[in-house]
């Protein structure tokens, strides 16, 4: 009992739950609308350096150029190449949901066909020995009625052979 009293004096245990509302902005808003309504993944282009961003960018970091010209958007993927990856074998708390990460969890750094800048997303393959750099993958997009206009409208990327 003595021990417990002392513990209570030196620790205060609290779990905080704080609601947030994050804005996606003009460009990601349009990207998610296309993904939700038409199931198409779009890249946009920097008018100065010509880099093709997927996920799209509002401003090119290097040229400080606005990249909002909608007529310059091009559909990319859904196939792409794995440039790097990690495989989580230990679970961690996810700050966005408050849930624990379901393991094993593999994430690929993926260059979609037609884009020049990488994105990252979940890989379907969770056997580390089967994940290879430069392996080909394809986005699995949810059926239209299940899409919500967020990044999880892409379920994951499945390995393909060509």
């Amino acid at each position: 009992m003595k021990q417990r009293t002392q513990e209570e004096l030196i620790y205060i245990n609290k779990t905080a739950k704080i609601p947030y509302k994050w804005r996606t902005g003009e460009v990601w808003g349009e990207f998610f609308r296309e993904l939700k309504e038409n199931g198409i993944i779009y890249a946009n282009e920097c008018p100065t350096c010509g880099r093709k961003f997927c996920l799209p960018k509002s401003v090119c970091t290097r040229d400080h150029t606005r990249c909002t010209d909608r007529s310059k958007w091009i559909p990319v993927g859904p196939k792409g190449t794995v440039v790097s990856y990690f495989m989580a074998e230990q679970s961690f708390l996810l700050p966005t949901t408050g849930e624990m990460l379901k393991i094993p969890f593999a994430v690929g750094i993926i260059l979609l066909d037609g884009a020049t800048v990488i994105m990252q997303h979940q890989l379907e393959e969770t056997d580390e020995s089967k994940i290879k750099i430069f392996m080909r993958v394809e986005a699995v997009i949810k059926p239209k009625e299940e899409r919500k206009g967020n990044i999880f409208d892409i379920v994951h990327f499945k390995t393909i052979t060509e």
Partner: protein
Amino acid sequence: MANRVAIVGIGQTTHSGRRPYVNDGELIYDAATKALEDAGLTINDMEAVMAGNMDFFEGHHLNDAMLNLYSGAAGRPGFKMNTGGTVGTMTAIQGWYHIASGLYDLVLVIGWEKHDEGLVTPAISTITDPAVDRHFLVGAIGGLATVSVAYMQRSGCKLEHAAMVRANSSQAAHRNPNAHMREIYSVEDVMNARMVMYPLNLLMCCPTSLGATAMVLASESKAKKICKKPVWMKDHVTVHVEYGGAQFGIGEKRWTSHMEAGARLFKRNHITKPMVETQVFEMYDPFAFAIPMWLEDFLVCEPNEGWKHVEKGDLKLEGSYPVSPSGGVLCTNSIGDSAILRVAEAALQVRGDGGEHQVTREVKQALASGFGGSYWSDLLLLSKTMD
């Protein structure tokens, strides 16, 4: 023209995973007092106090108040830094600005963190945008695991080399009484550790520690008057690059904040052979691949040569180019304190006050770095002499 700035006082707490009877303020007091004692000064001599701490990790946002209460900063000007992995180097650099500008002669800088009070990985995940990639980062470990895989792919570095790095770090930390993880590990021990995120296993990731480091910085005239062994903050570079893919060098030219920092610092100081002209590097090395990979990225060694230096034993405490002789972030990681500790440890090496972990090579110039996951690098050049 900036005025010259020297480190004239260094203090750090011991580092550990848990210290149940100590709160943040008490850590600050401990480190600040030690730095002031080392300088032979009191808080009343300080004209400004800079604080560095990642408040989000412990879920409090009153670290400026902690600074006032416990360091003696009340009534003095100061800033708090909250820049992730670079907190500590930025705090030291803020001190530098205030003296280099001619505003003040004596500034106290303090960095601290107390990771036993919160969860680091979910907090670090929030450096990415919740709309697009936060779910796919999984803290610093996820991001650093992907760059490790890419480094192995392009350079020929193997998992065993990362294990050698960690084994070396453990040997160094064992000789550092203030380090957190002081156990000695063999290459085999490291290889057999539990996998966290491929390719990084538990021992290849830095621990979560608590601790604080403080330094007293002084202007040239003050330093010469009050200090027998001033360490000059000769130059420093702070660089940001865009968050994203350029570091993989696929689809576009490879480009990282470390590459930019090294290029600028060495050019400005006419350093053409960093491994000769600087004699030790206290690197912010939060994962085992960092030392070989980032020696290359900082342009300290040639591309794809980093892991070969590991293999040859060059980077050990008694090697030809010791890296992180304190045991580095790999053995002690209290984030708001980690990067200022690199500067402090590099300064101790320049002074020759490294004690049991003093490198065998004579140190005239030293490098210290900080790194933030939001692609932010700090690289500092310390020197025994002013020029």
